[in-house]
C-alpha cells in the first residue's frame, strides 16, 4: 500500500515540479516585450504586447480583420500584407495562398506571431469594422433547427453595412466552452434599419456557438459582435439575377432582396431556395412581401425530400435542378449563392457550363 502511495506521490511530485519549471521558462522565453505595428505606411501605429497572434493582437487594438473560423487557420480569410518582420511563411498558411500572394507577402494574420516590430498593409475598409455591444430583443424559431436572433445595437448604436455582408458573433465562456470563440453569421435584416440586426442560425449538433445560441441565449442578454465583413453584396448592373440559397444561407439574400425592394431596383431576379421539406422553409411571408414591390422577381422553393404530408407540388430535387432545366443562355446573368459548400461548388460548375462569366458569380460559403 505505502509502496503504491510513494510511487504515486513521487511521480506526481516530479510532474508538478517539471510543470512549474516550464511555466517559469514560458514566462521568460515567451515574453517578447512591446512591439510596434505600423499599418499602411504610418497611417496608424500601435504599440502592443508581443507574443500573440497578429489577428488577436490587432483585434485588441480595435482593428478587425475578417475571419470566419475565429483564428483556427481553417477559413483562409484573415489575409493581410506583412511588409516587414513577419518571419518565414508557415506550412499552415501555404494551402490558402496562390503564387502571386506568396510573392507579395500576403500572410494569414491568425498564424503570424508578433515577435518584433511589424509593418503591415490592410485595406482601408477594415478600419470601418467595429466592435459592437448589442442586446437580444427577440428570439424566434424559424424552423425546427433554425433560430432567428434579433439584436438591438447598444454601443455604438448604429451599424453601416452592405446587404449580404456578415458579422462575427462572440460566444462567451460557458460550460463546455472554455474560452470565447467567434463565429461568422450573415446579416438577415435590411441595411436601412441600421440600429438592429437579425441573424438566422442553424443548430449544429455539439457546435460550440450554435449550442450556446440555441440552448442558452436568452432575451435581454448582452452579445458582442464585430463587423461588417465580406465582399458578398449586390453589384449594380441591369443583368438578370439568379439567387441560390440552401438552409440559413437565405439570410444574406433576403437582406439583398430588402435592399432591392426599398431602392426600387427592378431587375429580373429568381430566388431558388433549397431545403429538405416544407418544415424547413422560412421567411416565406417576408419573401412574398418583397415580391409585391419587385414585379420581375420570382420565388422558387425546391424541396429535396418532401414529406408525404407536405402535399408538395412545386419543384423537387437539388436546388440546381430547375436552373439546369430552365436557364438557356447565362451570358447575361449574374449569380449570388449562399449556403452549403457542396451546393455552391455544384452550382458554380453548372452556372459556368451555362455561360455565366466566372467573375459574375458571387458566393458566400458556409464552412
Amino acid at each position, binding site marked *: 500500500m505505502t509502496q503504491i502511495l510513494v510511487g504515486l506521490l513521487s*511521480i506526481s511530485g516530479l510532474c508538478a515540479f517539471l510543470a512549474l519549471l516550464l511555466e517559469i521558462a514560458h514566462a521568460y522565453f515567451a515574453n517578447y516585450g512591446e512591439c510596434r505595428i505600423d499599418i499602411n505606411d504610418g497611417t496608424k501605429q500601435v504599440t502592443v504586447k508581443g507574443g500573440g497572434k497578429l489577428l488577436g493582437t490587432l483585434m485588441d487594438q480595435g482593428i478587425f480583420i475578417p475571419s470566419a473560423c475565429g483564428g483556427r487557420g481553417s477559413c483562409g480569410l484573415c489575409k493581410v500584407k506583412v511588409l516587414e518582420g513577419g518571419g518565414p511563411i508557415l506550412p499552415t498558411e501555404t494551402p490558402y495562398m496562390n503564387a502571386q500572394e506568396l510573392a507579395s507577402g500576403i500572410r494569414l494574420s491568425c498564424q503570424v506571431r508578433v515577435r518584433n516590430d511589424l509593418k503591415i498593409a490592410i485595406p482601408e475598409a477594415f478600419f470601418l469594422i467595429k466592435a459592437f455591444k448589442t442586446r437580444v430583443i427577440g428570439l424566434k424559431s424559424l424552423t425546427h433547427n433554425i433560430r432567428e436572433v434579433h439584436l438591438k445595437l447598444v454601443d455604438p448604436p448604429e451599424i453601416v453595412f452592405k446587404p449580404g455582408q456578415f458579422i462575427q458573433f462572440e460566444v462567451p465562456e460557458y460550460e463546455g466552452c472554455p474560452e470565447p470563440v467567434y463565429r461568422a453569421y450573415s446579416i438577415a435584416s435590411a441595411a436601412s434599419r441600421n440600429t438592429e440586426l437579425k441573424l438566422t442560425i442553424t443548430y449544429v449538433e455539439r457546435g460550440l456557438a450554435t449550442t450556446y445560441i440555441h440552448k442558452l441565449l436568452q432575451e435581454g442578454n448582452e452579445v458582442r459582435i464585430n463587423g461588417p465583413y465580406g465582399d458578398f453584396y449586390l453589384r449594380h448592373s441591369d443583368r438578370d439575377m439568379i439567387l441560390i440559397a440552401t438552409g440559413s444561407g437565405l439570410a444574406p439574400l433576403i437582406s439583398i432582396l430588402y435592399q432591392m425592394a426599398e431602392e426600387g431596383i427592378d431587375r429580373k431576379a429568381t430566388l431558388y431556395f433549397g431545403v429538405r421539406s416544407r418544415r424547413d422553409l422560412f421567411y416565406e411571408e417576408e419573401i412574398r412581401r418583397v415580391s409585391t414591390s419587385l414585379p420581375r422577381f420570382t420565388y422558387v422553393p425546391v424541396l429535396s425530400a418532401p414529406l408525404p404530408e407536405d402535399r408538395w407540388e412545386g419543384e423537387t430535387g437539388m436546388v440546381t435542378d430547375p436552373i439546369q432545366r430552365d436557364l438557356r443562355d447565362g451570358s447575361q446573368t449574374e449569380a449570388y449563392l449562399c449556403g452549403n459548400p457542396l451546393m455552391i461548388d455544384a452550382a458554380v460548375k453548372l452556372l459556368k457550363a451555362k455561360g455565366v462569366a466566372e467573375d459574375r458569380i458571387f458566393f458566400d460559403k458556409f464552412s
Partner: protein
Amino acid sequence: MESTLSAPVIFFASIFTNNILLAYFLGMCSFLAISRELPSAVGLGIAVTFVMTCTTALNYIVYHYLLVPLGLVHFRFIVFIIVIAAFVQLVEMIIERYSPQLYVVLGVFLPLITVNCAILGVCLFMVIRRYNFLQSVAYGLGGGIGWLLAITALAGIREKLRKAPIPKALEGPGISLIIAGLMALSFMAFSGMIQIG
C-alpha cells in the same frame, strides 16, 4: 558491477562503433523524414544531441537519487519519458524564440523528439550498462553526436542523389533505407576497435 570503461572511450565508441542509429537502428523515423536537406538535418541533429546529453544527465540524477532510493525503479520508462517530454518543451520554447526559421523547418519533428526512441534508448542503456554520471553524460553526448553524424551523412548523400538516375520504384524512402543499410555496414568496420555494449 559498474562499467570499467573510461568516459572518453564510451564517448568515441558511441559515435563510431556503437552508433545509436547505425548499430541499433534507433531514431529511424526522423532520420528518414528530415534528411532531405542538409541544413534542417544538421539543425535537428544538434537539437537531438542537446536533448540527449541533457536528458541523460537529468535522468541519471532522477534515477539514482529518486527512483533507486524510493524503490521505484520499475517506473523508469514513464519517468524517463516525462523528463524528456518536459525538456523538449523547453527546447521548443527556446528554438521558437531564437530561431523561428529552424522552428518552421523542424515543424512537427521538434515535439516528436520526445518520442525519438534513440533518446529513451540512451537513457535505458545507461541504466542497463551501469554507467556512472560521467560515463552517462559521455554516452549521451556521444550518442547524440553519432546521431548527428549519421543524419548529416545521409542528408549529404540524399542531396547528391537528387540529380542521380534512380529507378522509379526506389525513389524516396526506398533508396534512403538502402543507403542507411550501406552506411551501417561501413560503420561496422569500426567495430573491431572498441566494444562497449
